[in-house]
């Protein structure tokens, strides 16, 4: 039983279906071990957006305030997409490499574990 309801067969409506976001889909980004940023960040991105725009524009804008950000060696960064290891293709669109609606992208920056290695 997917819900306890007075009316048999009651169903709900997903308020966050991808159609509700116009040309965009929701994508979540999170930089691990840097909890100066309290939670993962949510963005409406078009699926045609190249992955490089995340790395080149989005991340610097929102994670730039952290002193570790400028020390990141992007060649060593490890990514996961929806829980699976993932090697992004910066030239290709996010949609073409499996970044879907409400996908979760997490990245680890080896050697950089936050302020005094506090994870923040």
């Amino acid at each position, binding site marked *: 039983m*997917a819900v306890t309801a007075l009316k048999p067969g009651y169903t709900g409506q997903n308020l966050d279906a991808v159609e509700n976001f116009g040309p965009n889909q929701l994508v979540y980004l999170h930089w691990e071990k840097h909890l100066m940023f309290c939670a993962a960040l949510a963005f409406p991105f078009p699926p045609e957006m190249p992955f490089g725009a995340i790395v080149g524009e989005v991340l610097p804008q929102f994670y730039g305030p952290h002193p570790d950000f400028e020390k990141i060696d992007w060649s060593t960064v490890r990514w996961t997409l929806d829980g699976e290891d993932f090697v992004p293709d910066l030239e290709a669109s996010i949609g073409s490499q499996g970044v879907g609606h409400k996908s*979760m992208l997490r990245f680890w920056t080896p050697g950089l574990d936050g302020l005094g290695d506090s994870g923040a």
Partner: protein
Amino acid sequence: MAKKIPLKRKYEMMTRGLAWDTTYQDMDDVYPYDKFEGIKIHDWDAWEDPFRLTQDAYWKYQAEKERKLYAVIDSFAQNNGQLGLSDARYLGALKLFLTGVSPLEYQAHRHFAHLARNIRGTGAQVAAQMQSIDELRHAQTQIHAISHYNKYFDGLHDFTHMHDRVWYLSVPKSFFDDAVSAGPFEFFTAISFSFEYVLTNLLFVPFMSGAAYNGDLATVTFGFSAQSDESRHMTLGLEVIKFLLEQDEANVPIIQHWIDKWFWRGHRLLSLVGMMMDYMLPKKIMSWKDAWEMYFEEQGGALFEDLARYGIRPPMHAEQANNEKHRISHEVWAIFYQYTHAAGFHTWDIDDEHKAWLSAEYPDTFDKYYRPRLDLWKQMAADGNRYYNMALPQLCQVCQIPMGFTEPDDPTTICFRSREYQGDRYHFCSDGCQYIFDHEPEKYIQAWLPVHQIFQGNCGGAEIPDVLNWYHLNLGVDNMAYEGSAEEKIWNDWMATRRVGAART
């Protein structure tokens, strides 16, 4: 003089003695809501209010409480009681309480009226009637407090509008919407038992005592006046549970699931109170951790030992909640500190004395995990670059709090949980919230998540000022850093005047 009727006899006469079963209409048609949850009741007469409170006594004592309360509120208003606060930062906690909780009191009033009409046991009807009136009284007294503070301070000017729209107020709102859209017995288990009996002490008691310590006489008074009703509500909550468990063995697993669910719902909601206690009271009364140990681990522990004879065990994720007592207030403060530009109250940088207190109260976690980021933020603010997070946070599908809570075994890693349901992904902050979703996905896929609504274009626009306008919040007045705010200025001016006045006498 007529002989006084003994209490037990009077209670019987004033409850069951006034009731009847319908005969022109089938009882199941008159009471259509009390069977679909699968709860089996064989004998409603077994319901007993241990206080044995009847309407005549109810009105007498409530009238007395009201007289006392309004004498204090009047005197507070007349004598500019707001000047006696420990510090204007205290108001942040008060604003969050009044905008988050007061509308719930009104919701509770409405729903207990609904229950009083729609459950078929007379004792339970009478108790629900009284509670409905209590909750209306709580809403009214808190609105009087809002009215007073609104004359002097920012952010309280449109609390009902804000409750329906503002991102963090969706946390208490959706909590209560979840309860009122459930059946009557789940509502009782959710609100009367899990919330009122098990957790409300943590909302009202240390916080109100904290209000007293910080000079907020109006809040202490409405808080404790409300809490005197709460102790009756708590008793109702425990009575409901015992009654349901005694009626039929088949009720036990249903109730256990509701306890598991609503304990976690309540624990997440109260993380906001944890932040208020540890970060927002200028004069501290006890840490969230100590309050949790006293009210949940000790009192709740005794309660669940008592309920073991019915086959009830402690809530499923209680261990995880105990484990989080070292963390959640810090994690939630981090959220509000960096999103204060989208809130209806201020946040501030934490001074050294406050950090020393946090370090002493949280020796295992504060210095290691939380102090470094507080230090960095303070430095950034000193450099003229106060940190605000300009992207929107990912929210939990169930509790709707930004996903700032960490893995059970690792306070440096966010706890990410997700599920696919009918081809769509849903994200959760914890095993507890995921468990709740798994049982009733058709309910939670309907969540109105503020961040997603903004991106869908339903909240006044795409930029933060548009959204704040839609919230009826005034950017830079009601919110952002306390340092440099209009509220800080007016407070400092008042205090300077008072010092001048004192010097003259």
